């Protein structure tokens, strides 16, 4: 036997072992690891004596938090509770901020009138640039200032690794890497950051799956839109004391839908375009720690909140100005904005949105944060002048523009599933180094969003629910 025949024999051997593995449904990988662990456990039990109570506390808590029965409900409750705290806590400061910022707008308008500045300058700068920035600030800052510290707190407490641990076997079932749960958590903060964090996944196949599906968890740029619409429609009709609870419930359900889509798409990808087996990983569960409050506040406020806010404002300000110009430059009887919205109307109508909503999502490509502000601005520029300092007023504005509960649900689902923002796409291009995969990262969520909204709308219409 020389070298060549030997390498041939080796590849034959590989084929043989492949046959054995596939006939027994690939149970060996897991089984081998669990057998090694069992041996280690047995030996450790014999040769190590522990008399420590502190350790028992950690393992007891771990048993509850990572149990197959109680693990998921507890995770769900924690998620719901955080969202509830965010929504109920953000309501009041949001109102105050909005009131303060819009009263400054009045002062600015007064100044422009006093100096005799031309109307268009006042429009672009105050009604466009300033107003959209004020919107972003008042809608986004309070929820972020509450959500991010809470999220960082969970990270510091050591809860996030347990969440990853719980989700691991679900990802395995989808033949993806368990580490994807960590990149998914990262996506809750920012999808672009989530895509970068996919570097921790070693297998190129699993990394691609994680990158392509990261967009299905809502990032902080989309929370404000979801929270605002959820509060207005899901809870608007109910008595005051249930509003936040219902809104938190709606967002929780939406996040669950996002996670379900993540699993489904991961499963589909690993059975079609990216075929392969899941690799296992070792996840060390760190001990529970007392969080360092100061560092939590610093990390969440400086690193996340201010960073995201800055990015949002930089993009929102010019986008506001552009939206104002589009809404105020007339061709024929209608503004450019209305022309475009009318052009989009047939498509948008089929998926239960209207032209303005779809246009807002398209204009929001640079950053998801500005979708809702753009939408409000385009409605406002069409002549409905409302003081937007209460939820009821907002609801009136939307309803007078033809919104129903179906529009609200579709908008939220579209927001959850639609294309990633430009930053995420650029990051995807950098991380995958391939235009093809980046295009798929754009095309796949877009198709899914359109399909889901279309099916939902048509079903509701056929069933005559609306």
């Amino acid at each position, binding site marked *: 036997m020389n070298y060549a025949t030997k390498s041939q024999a080796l590849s034959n051997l590989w084929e043989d072992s492949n046959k054995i593995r596939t006939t027994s449904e690939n149970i060996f990988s897991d089984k081998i690891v669990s057998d090694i662990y069992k041996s280690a456990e047995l030996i450790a039990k014999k040769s190590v004596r522990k008399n420590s109570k502190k350790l028992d506390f950690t393992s007891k808590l771990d048993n509850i938090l990572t149990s197959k029965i109680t693990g998921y409900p507890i995770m769900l409750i924690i998620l719901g509770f955080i969202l509830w705290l965010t929504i109920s806590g953000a309501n009041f400061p949001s109102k105050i901020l909005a009131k303060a910022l819009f009263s400054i707008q009045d002062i600015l308008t007064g100044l422009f009138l006093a100096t005799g500045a031309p109307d268009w300058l006042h429009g672009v700068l105050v009604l466009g640039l300033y107003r959209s920035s004020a919107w972003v600030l008042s809608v986004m800052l309070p929820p972020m200032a509450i959500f991010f510290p809470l999220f960082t707190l969970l990270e510091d407490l050591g809860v996030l690794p347990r969440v990853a641990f719980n989700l691991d076997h679900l990802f395995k079932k989808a033949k993806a890497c368990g580490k994807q749960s960590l990149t998914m958590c990262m996506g809750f903060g920012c999808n672009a950051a989530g895509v970068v964090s996919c570097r921790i996944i070693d297998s190129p196949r699993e990394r691609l799956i994680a990158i392509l599906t990261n967009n299905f968890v809502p990032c902080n740029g989309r929370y404000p839109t979801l929270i605002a619409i959820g509060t207005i429609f899901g809870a608007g009709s109910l008595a005051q004391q249930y509003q936040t609870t219902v809104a938190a419930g709606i967002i929780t359900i939406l996040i669950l839908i996002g996670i379900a889509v993540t699993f489904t798409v991961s499963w589909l990808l690993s059975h079609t375009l990216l075929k392969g087996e899941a690799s296992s990983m070792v996840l*060390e569960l760190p001990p529970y720690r007392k969080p360092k409050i100061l560092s939590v506040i610093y990390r969440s406020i400086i690193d996340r909140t201010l960073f995201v806010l800055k990015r949002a404002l930089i993009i929102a300000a010019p986008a506001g100005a552009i939206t104002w110009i589009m809404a105020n430059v007339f061709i024929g009887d209608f503004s450019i904005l209305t022309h475009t919205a009318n052009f989009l109307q047939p498509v948008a109508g089929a998926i239960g949105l209207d032209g303005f909503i779809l246009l807002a999502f398209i204009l929001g490509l640079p950053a998801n944060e500005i979708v809702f502000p753009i939408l409000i601005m385009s409605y406002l520029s069409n002549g409905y002048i409302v003081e937007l300092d209460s939820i009821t007023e907002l609801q009136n504005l939307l309803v007078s523009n033809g919104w129903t509960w179906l529009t609200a649900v579709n908008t939220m689902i579209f927001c959850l599933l639609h294309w990633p923002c430009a930053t995420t796409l650029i990051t995807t291009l950098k991380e995958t180094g391939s235009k093809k995969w980046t295009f798929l990262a754009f095309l796949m969520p877009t198709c899914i969003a359109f399909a889901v909204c279309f099916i939902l709308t048509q079903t509701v219409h056929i069933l005559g629910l609306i």
Partner: protein
Amino acid sequence: MHSLPIDHSIILRNLFGITPKQNQAVIALAGNPNVGKSTLFNALTGLRQHTGNWPGKTVDNAQGAFTYKDKSFLLIDLPGTYSILAHTVEEEIARDFICFGKPNVTLVVLDATSMERNLNLALQVMEITSNIVVCVNLIDEAKKQNIIVDTTLLENELGVPVIATSARNKTGLKELCETLYLVARGKLITQPKNITYSEEIENAVNILLPKIEQLNIGCILNPRWVALRLLDGDKKIISNICRYLDLQPSKYYEREVEITL
């Protein structure tokens, strides 16, 4: 133990970038992250260190020399890993070095405060090589937490020498050096025990074993271990065996095959 191929130094140099001096015993240092591996490395080698990268990888590699009695040792610090099932680059490097680098002794460092998790790695290494010494480090920290490790019992369970150390306080190091010395000199014979796997795995291993034994790679790798890796679906092991065979000068290789045939 089988005799090492004559050209083993080529393997060490080309695949791992390691050139031991003549008669220098190579010791691989393996262990989970954060078990005090680096502290032990520094305590043993002092300033006689050389750091760089593993060939073609962006993973740090540290080598250090020390002498005990009349024997010179070259200590190779492997990347800290939880397992050596080759799921990450670090794990692959650690595994390949133990497999193909054939260190004279593999020293596995365990954290005394979490033996259960750490023993996994020791068991996995024991499947590849029999020249292994286990070092239970952070023994002082374990004492503080009221954890008592019975090293004699552990020695019996594993079938390899077990030394308790605290690299930070430099306790147990002399005993460790003595054991390394004895194993490297072949004066202390280790007999690592096999992991018993579930029936379905043992059955599948038995199907593959004759095919692997036909290949005559027993001088490089333990056939049972190769069977387990194949069942694990680890394709890299095949290509790595090929790469390893590629480095063997064919003359020597064919001569060896003739003898064995």
